[in-house]
């Protein structure tokens, strides 16, 4: 009992320490929380109707429209507040799927070894060789009318191999430890040893990679919106950027907020996540922790 839960609790303590101990880690955490509050609490505070107004096409910034209006005369700030939810939760779900696949397959490959390992490695070789954007492009076009959840699944299905490889390598080294040996002697069963004894030791590492997977997924989601490969739904930062770009907003100074505001939000979120993951890596680096 204690052998398995103690390291996990220690990990969450260490995650908190890693984020608050260094200035950059703390700033990253603040950025991420700020963007999350803006996107998830903000919609409760603005008027969500946001009507189109032909008289206000590409209107400038003023007291009534803080960030001006877009090509349809809609208020840019309201769209900005409403547009964060979808890319963020699609990114998080996609990252969860990536990490789940990588942990399960990496754990099995590293623990069972033999021909299962061989087959899974061959699979990662092939998946890694196809540039992942290309693969996603093709898959996404099957589901041109896909729900956001489907998009998350597509991204998750394409991006697991790198993480799977490093988890496999760590399981290979962990499986030789005494406590795993002890569990094997007790005949606890492969699944139990793997998921209860071996994998909790990598919780910190998996968490760092979960954060990195979110940044990759958001890169992919916004990129696919940019290419017009995803169905246009309600307000969405990726869609705002695409509409701004396709309406030549880069030629018009009053159109700049509509293009740049969602870009800034995405960049702040990504920078926050990357800074967080860097600080955590220094605090939780498995190479430093294990030796």
């Amino acid at each position, binding site marked *: 009992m204690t052998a398995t839960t103690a390291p996990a609790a220690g990990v969450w303590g260490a995650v908190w320490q890693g984020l608050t101990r260094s200035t950059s880690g703390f700033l990253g955490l603040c950025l991420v929380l700020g963007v999350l509050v803006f996107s998830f609490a903000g919609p409760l505070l603005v008027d969500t109707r946001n009507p189109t107004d032909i008289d206000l096409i590409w209107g400038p910034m003023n007291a009534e429209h803080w960030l001006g209006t877009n090509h349809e005369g809609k208020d840019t700030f309201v769209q900005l507040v409403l547009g964060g939810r979808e890319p963020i939760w699609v990114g998080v779900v996609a990252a969860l799927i990536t990490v789940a696949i990588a942990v399960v397959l990496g754990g099995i490959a590293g623990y069972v070894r033999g*021909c299962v390992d061989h087959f899974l490695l061959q699979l990662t070789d*092939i998946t890694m060789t196809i540039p992942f954007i290309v693969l996603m492009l093709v*898959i996404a076009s099957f589901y041109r009318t896909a729900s956001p959840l489907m998009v998350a699944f597509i991204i998750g299905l394409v991006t697991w191999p790198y993480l799977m490889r490093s988890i496999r390598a760590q399981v290979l080294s962990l499986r030789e430890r005494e406590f795993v040996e002890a569990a094997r002697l007790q005949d606890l069963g492969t699944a139990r040893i793997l998921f209860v004894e071996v994998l909790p030791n990598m919780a910190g590492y998996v968490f760092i990679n979960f954060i990195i997977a979110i940044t990759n997924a958001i890169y992919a989601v916004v990129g696919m919106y940019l290419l017009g490969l995803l169905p246009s739904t309600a307000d969405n930062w990726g869609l705002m950027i695409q509409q701004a770009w396709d309406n030549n907003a*880069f030629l018009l100074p009053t159109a700049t907020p509509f293009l740049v505001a969602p870009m800034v939000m995405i960049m702040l979120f990504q920078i926050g996540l990357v800074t967080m993951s860097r600080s955590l890596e220094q605090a939780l680096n498995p190479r430093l922790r294990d030796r």
Partner: protein
Amino acid sequence: MATDTAASPPPPDAPASAADPPSLPWRVWRHHLFVKVRKSVVVVFVVANVTFFLARAMPGDPIDVMAGRLTQGGMSMDEARVIATNSLAFDPDAPLWRQWWDFFVGLVTLDLGNTITRPAVGVAEAIAAYLPWTLFSIGVGTVVSIVLGLSLGMVMAYRRNRFLDHALSVAASVLGAVPNYLIAMLLVVGGGLYLGWFDPVALRGTVSPGVTPGFTAEFVGDAFYHAGLPILTYVLAIVGTWMLVMKASTTEVLGEDYVTVARARGLRDGRIAFAYVGRNAVLPLVAQIAISFGTLVGGAVFVERVLVYKGVGGLLLDAVNYRDYPLLQGLLIIVTACVVAANLVADLLYSRLDPRISDQGAATP
């Protein structure tokens, strides 16, 4: 890739006793490089077949897509389908196995076939017109970012915890976190609209109209002028990663005994920095160059679309949108082959640079 050889079981038909000298065909078969090449061919073959079925699984075929577009112009559906069927080199009634057999024969005979949407144009021809531009912009971007990133990373490691190190670290983190297509957009808005350094519309395409290709100063200059924004985007997007990785690698090497010994021997700092520290710090990064190349080829789809640069990225998007199966297959095969080739070169380079890896690899007992 390197871990595979260790995990693979010994081949059942291995020479029975160590006393027998292995035959030449056997040595070739087990040669490190040959094993890699064999594996690469298998990967490309599997990818090609996966692409074939992925492409066919997409909803709608080329005729549907073209007919759909024609009906938007007010034409009736039946009329549109007849026109589409006549103008496209695609038989919607051919069974899947027949299409696969044609594709397979083409693959084996290295014939990529003709495009569907422009029946007279060969796939190889179409790709040959676009691929050089992508390889040119990505190649120059990779080289510049590596040279810049490695030098800056080494400077950061030598100036650890000074102001320069902190400033460069922040810059590298920020650059590494921003998606490449957003960097491209910021360059266009900032440099084009606000600073007025260039006209983003005139920069579209790979060369200006009227400039004839050839090894003339005008053509080369114009090509670099148009590729400037994509190259700058690629450099900014990846230089940060190289800086941070090189800094970590150099820091590790600086703690090694041989560096201390070299210092104690009174060698000049410049010599230590290049012959000892630099060389050993770069070594572990060589394999990553190939990976970075592969990621860039994928990212080119976004960057080329944003900057309207006529490379394979835009061609690929067209192939997907118009369901041009042969073009899509050909592009994926070529792009995969490029990435696989980059991996092979990285492997070779690595074994040249690191004396501990003999190119006999797993074959030597």
